[in-house]
C-alpha cells in the first residue's frame, strides 16, 4: 500500500494505480469530476495514464450549486 492524500485526507491505496483506476476505486464517475494532482490539473484525457504515486496530493472536485 502507498499513502496519498485525497481532498485533504490521508488514504492508503494499492501501488500502481492510475488516476482512472483510483477514481473507479473511489466509485467516482470520471465525467463529472475534475482532478488536481500535486497542484496541477489533470486533463480528462490523461486520466488513464496519470500515475498515482506515494505522497501524491489529489483534489477531486465537481460542480455544485453556487452564486
Amino acid at each position, binding site marked *: 500500500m502507498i499513502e496519498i492524500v485525497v481532498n485533504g485526507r490521508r488514504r492508503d491505496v494499492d501501488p500502481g494505480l492510475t488516476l482512472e483506476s483510483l477514481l473507479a476505486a473511489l466509485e467516482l464517475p470520471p465525467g463529472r469530476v475534475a482532478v488536481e494532482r500535486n497542484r496541477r490539473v489533470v486533463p480528462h484525457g490523461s486520466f488513464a495514464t496519470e500515475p498515482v504515486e506515494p505522497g501524491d496530493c489529489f483534489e477531486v472536485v465537481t460542480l455544485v450549486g*453556487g452564486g
Partner: protein
Amino acid sequence: MKSEKLTIAGRSLGSRLIVGTGKYPSFEIMRQAHEASGSEAVTVAVRRVNLSDRSKESLLDYIDPKRFMLLPNTAGCYTADDAVRTARLGREAGLSSFVKLEVIGDEKTLFPDNEGLLEATRILVKEGFVVMPYTNDDVVMAKKLRDAGAAAVMPLGAPIGSGLGIRNLVNLTLILEAITDIPVIVDAGVGTASDAAVAMEMGCDGVLMNTAIAGARDPVRMARAMRLAVEAGRLAFEAGRIPRKLYATASSPLEGTPFIP
C-alpha cells in the same frame, strides 16, 4: 461600442440576466426558476466531491447544457493562488473557459480582496480564461481589471446575499462612464425586481444574482419578476427617461379648461 446583446468575450447571450444555482429549495425548483428567468448563463461553484456520501443528485442533471452557459466561480477562495487553482479545476469540470472570479477579503462581508483579484486576473487571462471578476464599486480597480484583460467587470451593489440593492449610485455611475469597452455587470446585492431595474436603467450591461431568486418565498415567480425587471430597466435606459424636476408639469392641457368666464 457596446452590443445590442450582452456579449462577453464575443459570446452573445439572449438575456442580460445571469443567475446562480445555490440555495434553492430543490433542484427541480431551481430548474423551473432558471426557465422562468430567461437567463442563458448560470454560475456554479467548484467543491470537493463527497467521498463518504456519493448518493447526492448532481446539479448538472438539472441544467441543460445546450441552453445554459456554465460559469464556474471561485467562491470561498481567499488568495489569488486558491482562486487560480479553482478556476483551472472549474474549467476542466465545466468545459468552459469562462470564470466568475472571486477572491474574498473578508469573511463577514464577503467583500473582494482586490489585490488578489487583480493578480489572479492577470494569471488567468494569460492562460486563456474569460475572466469575469467580482469586485467592489471602485472605478480605479474597475479600470485596472479591464486593463489586465478582464472580459467584464462585475461590481457589487451591496454585500452578497444582503438584498440591500445598489447602495451607491454615484460609484456605479462613475464606473459606467469609465468602462465602455467591456460589459459592466452588477454582481451581488440585488434584493428585488426594482433593484435589477435600477441597475439596467443606469446603463449596466447585465445583472448577476443568486440569493434574490433562490431565497424568495416563491423562487420561480421571483425569477420571472427578475426577467421582466431586467428587460424593463434596459428598455427604459434605451427609451430615455424624462428629466427629474422639482415642480409639477400638467399632463392635461391648460388651454380650453371649461367654465372660465
